């Protein structure tokens, strides 16, 4: 609106006044952002260094955080709207996504960068005067004793426990995500033709509402083992003993290692089947009825319809769901930590990372594991996003 009105007004005012208005506009465009940045920076310094009581700091942090973002938005939006129309259109999206990108940089990219540096040092991390952002301090740090280069990465690929973790993570991917997809698809297909579709789908979806930790606690009781002549309180062993068998250790059963991992993987299947079922169910309903009718007329069996028509039609969804669960299982931590603490040959990459970083306080080794975990997740993530963008996945 402002731009439309201006020319009419300008006709009546002198060149000098126009100059002052122009100066004023520059002043507003430059000084207001400057003041805003100063206020935000002062808030940051206060929060970092202040000795004020906790509650004062908390309140100021909230005002600073929420108010700061609003202020930034207002300032940037103001600047952009003052620009020529063409530029306003071009830059306005950045005003909206800018804060998100900045936060992503601050909380994700920078920590990754710092973690990478940490992984090149030994257990105590950086030498005293090192800053990751100051290249001048790099040479001294690299020559210092605590710089170990790729030693941590070599250790990752040579230590038995780490190799065991990689093997287990692979099992999680192969069995965990595949079985979640297969059971989810199967249930979606069956439920689609059932009278009790709603009830059955709700029941299978229910575990999705339970956290990984909660589910692990539940399954710990399911796997509970008691001596054979004591009453069994775990469902699995109660059944086995009732059938005349010996109580088994299930997830702690090292005699069958590494297959005892499957009893942990079962938990994630139980949790994730509902997720894949819901998406597959929606995808199956999206297949045009005419195609299926036509194939029936042509004499295709139900099995043929399922494999030759339904699966190819929803392939994009299958791949997206599968890769999503692969990412879950690559990062799996909670279930292993609660159930076995990584013992009995069940360590995964994430539990090893936690152990090294926080129990052993070996920040270099822990960071190296974190970087490797990130590197393994990224390709899957990219593939997942590409599928998501190309196909009408969901």
């Amino acid at each position, binding site marked *: 609106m402002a731009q439309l009105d201006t020319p009419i007004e300008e006709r009546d005012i002198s060149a000098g006044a126009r100059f002052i208005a122009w100066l004023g506009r520059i002043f507003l465009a430059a000084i207001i952002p400057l003041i805003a940045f100063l206020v935000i920076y002062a808030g940051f310094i206060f929060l970092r260094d202040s000795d004020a009581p906790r509650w004062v700091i908390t309140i100021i942090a909230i005002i600073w955080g929420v108010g700061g973002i609003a202020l930034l938005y207002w300032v940037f939006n103001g600047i952009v709207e003052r620009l020529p129309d063409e530029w306003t259109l071009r830059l306005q999206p950045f005003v909206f996504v800018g804060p998100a990108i900045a936060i992503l940089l601050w909380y994700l990219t920078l920590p990754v960068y710092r973690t990478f540096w940490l992984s090149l040092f030994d257990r105590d991390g950086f030498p005293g005067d090192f800053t990751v952002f100051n290249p001048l301090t790099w040479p001294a740090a690299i020559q210092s004793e605590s710089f170990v280069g790729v030693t941590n990465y070599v250790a990752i690929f040579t230590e038995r426990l780490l190799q065991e973790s990689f093997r287990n993570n692979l099992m999680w991917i192969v069995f965990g995500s595949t079985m979640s997809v297969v059971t989810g698809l199967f249930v979606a297909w069956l439920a689609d033709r059932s009278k009790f579709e709603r009830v059955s789908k709700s029941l299978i979806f229910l575990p999705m509402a339970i956290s990984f930790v909660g589910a692990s606690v539940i399954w710990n009781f399911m796997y509970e083992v008691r001596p054979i002549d004591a009453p069994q309180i775990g469902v699995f062993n109660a059944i086995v003993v009732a059938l005349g068998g010996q109580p088994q250790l299930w997830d702690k059963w090292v005699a069958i290692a590494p297959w005892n991992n499957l009893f942990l993987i079962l938990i994630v299947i139980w949790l994730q089947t509902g997720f894949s079922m819901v998406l597959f169910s929606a995808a199956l309903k999206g297949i045009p009825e005419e195609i299926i009718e036509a194939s029936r007329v042509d004499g295709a069996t139900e099995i043929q319809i399922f494999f030759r028509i339904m699966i190819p039609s929803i392939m994009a969804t299958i791949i997206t769901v599968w890769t999503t669960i692969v990412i879950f299982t690559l990062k799996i931590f909670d279930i292993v930590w609660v159930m076995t603490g990584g*013992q009995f040959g069940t360590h995964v990459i994430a539990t090893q990372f936690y152990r090294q970083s926080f129990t*052993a306080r070996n920040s270099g080794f822990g960071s190296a594991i974190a970087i490797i975990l990130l590197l393994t997740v990224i390709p899957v993530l990219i593939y997942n996003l590409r599928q998501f963008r190309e196909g009408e996945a969901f």
Partner: protein
Amino acid sequence: MTGITVNYVGDKEFEGRLSIAVDAGNPPDIVDFPQPGLLANFARQGYVIDPTTYIPEDWLTQQYNQSWLDMATMEGQIAGVWHRYNGKSLVWYPKAVFDAAGYEVPETWDELLALTQMIADDGDTAWCIGIESGAATGWTATDWTEEMMLRTTSVAGTLPFSSPEVKNAIETWSEIWFNPDYVFGGTDTIVSTAFDDSPAPMFEDPPRCWLHRQGNFITGSFPEGAEPGVDYDFFYLPPVNDEYGRPFLVAGDIMSQFNDRPEVNALMEYFTVPESAVGWLANDSALAAHQTTPLEFYGPGLRGIAELAAAATSFRFDASDLMPGEVGAGSFWTGMTDYVSGLSDLDTALAEIDASWPQ
């Protein structure tokens, strides 16, 4: 009344949570470390405040036996003040039924093995053993190893885990653990039975097991209403070889300070007097680390243990708690669990513990 309010936060993931809090620059004021080895890591990184900056050293030497002060000295500073400790070299048994069955308290390791066999011959399993403890699974096995080390060898200096002395110590307790006739539920259930659930079968009628080795804190997990001296009692885990006397294994809690504020200092000062541990002493759950503790502070159940500790020929701190975090709170536990569960043989397990020792 000082007007200081203490907020206590307990956590099963203590090791991890504390590291995160310290790294984030937001450490708790005072940390109760059950494992001085873990504390040493923080002391090395310069996070721990030396209490002698405001408590006179004379006062500390008056309150504590020198060996406690030595154990609190890490990385060239006093890293905290000892508060309370547990006696570990104890075997619990259901006294009334034990006596009625005609069993006798063993005085030597051979007598203990004979008693174990006698109970097996009577158709029962003698021992209740459980080492499951969440992410800390395995620590009970490290205790047994330390007990046997103290009873089968005398070491000056340090030994690698793979040395014959350590192997021999572990094989000594393995004689009991790996005999399915000796352990309630068999060897397999040891790794999956929570340490604090494990003594429960001892209190069934008739008892399903008769012996349980654990520190004095385990009485807190005994069934409610079980009466000391009637329903249960304890004896000293007998020596294997007389040559090494009657060693007594202990583990204790050291209070360490991470924030320097007057009220925090005041609380630290309070921890140096036995009155601060009176709650534990009166209900039989720990002994006070202070040498000035009057006997009447103790409840009836603990006086015996205090006497046992006094009669011991040597007094040794739990070794795994003194080791660096990655061993004492990591690979030693894991190694013992792997060995007991059969995942790896003893040589492999010990070699891996050695390999994990930080350079």
